[in-house]
């Protein structure tokens, strides 16, 4: 039982880093980055490749954040000028490009064969879970501080009224790039922690379903609310665990389909009844 709880919490802490960082761009800055998962995947692949080539994890972990963050910075530098829906579309397109590249750039990613044998950071699952907790806590504290700082205020001003922020003499372009860079840096960190936890990654890390679940965590918690994101992650993660306890006695070939339908139905109901989530403060 406790081993199972450790696993559930390990995932929760990884997802907290991922979702809170997504909230920085999506909720606080108003940049609907639907391609956040691509940076999670980049971080996972970066960390896996680095450690498989003998680089210790304490270098690979920050490096994978930096690699994902640099990708984020470059892409943001090109795309944040796009207005409204167009940014959202590039970001979504990015998620689809990531899966095509990871499947086909075989000399680097080994394609569908995936990367096995990614070393553990900490062998004992309980202590690794504590380590994840520490990293998640640091990330949350940093992002909480950031969103309440002067910079965070400017992020939110850009979200609410970009023209006004620009009139006040703020370089909104740079601030938007900064927001995406920080956000994707943490996505990369989360990806690295994830890769070391399950020890094997392949292109399915970019699956549409996984991506929808991460977005659901954000929406359920509410935009521009860090405590909301933490709660959203917890609620959806527990829901994901709980779903494997229902439909145990129906015809076996229906188990998977019924569970997935139930999960999607619950997500739809949440979206319909609480489109702003539990702590949502803003609309983006």
């Amino acid at each position: 039982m406790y081993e199972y709880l450790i696993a559930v919490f390990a995932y929760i802490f990884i997802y907290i880093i991922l979702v809170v960082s997504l909230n920085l761009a999506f909720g606080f800055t108003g940049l609907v980055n639907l391609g956040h998962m691509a940076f999670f995947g980049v971080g996972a692949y970066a960390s896996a490749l680095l450690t498989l080539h003998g680089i210790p994890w304490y270098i690979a972990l920050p490096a994978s954040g930096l690699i994902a963050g640099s990708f984020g910075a470059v892409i943001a530098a090109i795309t944040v000028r796009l207005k409204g829906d167009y940014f959202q579309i590039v970001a979504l397109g990015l998620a689809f490009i990531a899966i095509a590249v990871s499947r086909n750039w075989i000399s680097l990613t080994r394609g569908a064969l995936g990367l096995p044998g990614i070393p553990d950071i900490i062998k004992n699952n309980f202590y690794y879970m504590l380590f994840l907790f520490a990293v998640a806590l640091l990330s949350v504290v940093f992002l909480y501080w950031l969103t309440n700082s002067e910079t965070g205020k400017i992020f939110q001003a850009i979200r609410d009224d970009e023209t006004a922020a620009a009139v006040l003499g703020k370089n909104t372009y740079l601030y938007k790039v900064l927001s995406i860079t920080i956000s994707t840096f943490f996505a990369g960190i989360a990806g690295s922690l994830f890769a070391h936890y399950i020890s094997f990654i392949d292109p399915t890390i970019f699956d549409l379903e996984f991506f929808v679940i991460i977005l659901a965590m954000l929406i359920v918690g509410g935009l521009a609310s860090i405590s909301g994101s933490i709660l959203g992650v917890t609620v959806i993660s527990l829901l994901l665990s709980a779903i494997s306890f229902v439909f145990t006695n129906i015809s076996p070939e229906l188990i998977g389909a019924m569970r997935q339908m139930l999960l999607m139905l619950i997500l739809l109901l949440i979206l319909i009844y609480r489109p702003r989530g539990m702590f949502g403060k803003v609309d983006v």
Partner: protein
Amino acid sequence: MPLLDILPQLIVNGLIAGSIYALAASGFSLIYYVVKFQYFSHGAIMSIGAYLFFTFMNLMGLNYILAGILTVIGCVIATLLSNWLLYLPLRKRKATPAIILIASIVLLIFSSSLMLAFFGSSTKAISLAKHNKTFDFGIFTITLVQTAIIVSALILFLFLWIILKKTKLGKSMRALADNKDVAQVVGINPEKIYNYTFIIAAVLGAFGGILLGLEQNLYPRMGVPIIIKGFISSVVGGLGSVPGSIIGGLFIGLAENVGVLYLPTGYKDVISFSVLLLFLLFRPQGILGVKMRNV
């Protein structure tokens, strides 16, 4: 054999793929144009269309005209249900387009599990496809089904154009698309027009699904890859432009198939996404720029 010899075949391959992409893109684009959100569950409607047609043809043994009519009716019902049960409540609660987009992807995944529960995981073939024939023109070959895909896509697009350009409904749709508030002032009921728009999209989805099912095979998640291509096509063609989305579909189909002349074929998807990225960076308004966007 020099690579250029295979070019005519690649162009034909591109047109076939492009027609199917265009069918997916036109429904997606129509909803984006009028109702203003990214309609990913159009892929679900296409897969429902394919499976309904399979049910009527293979399992119930109806003739293909009757099966086609029933499939269209089924898709219209499914689409209206999705509007009334999901999209209407979301609009009422003033959910943002990003939230509606997420809901439509969730619905797409839901429908693939529904197909899995009803029809099982194995790939199915529509019995009509057995009567397929191949025509050999020397420099390229094409099958009967593929010819039918291109021809029916053209007919559907003609109908769509007539509705949008020549009817009162089309006029209301355009008015609503341009400015919802003004349209309401002049007495257009948005929800009523939205319903009609969803019905037209459902008809496009039903035929798109049938043709897709005939050309390929049926499997529960068939709606996912096709709507992603439809999405790319409609962006490349010009988001919110229905004729643009059709051109975009053909363009992407051709780019994918001709582009791999010198590239490894696994990069087909990378090609379409790179085209998407290039367009978004250098011509975000798509092929049919601002000028044609009021259609």
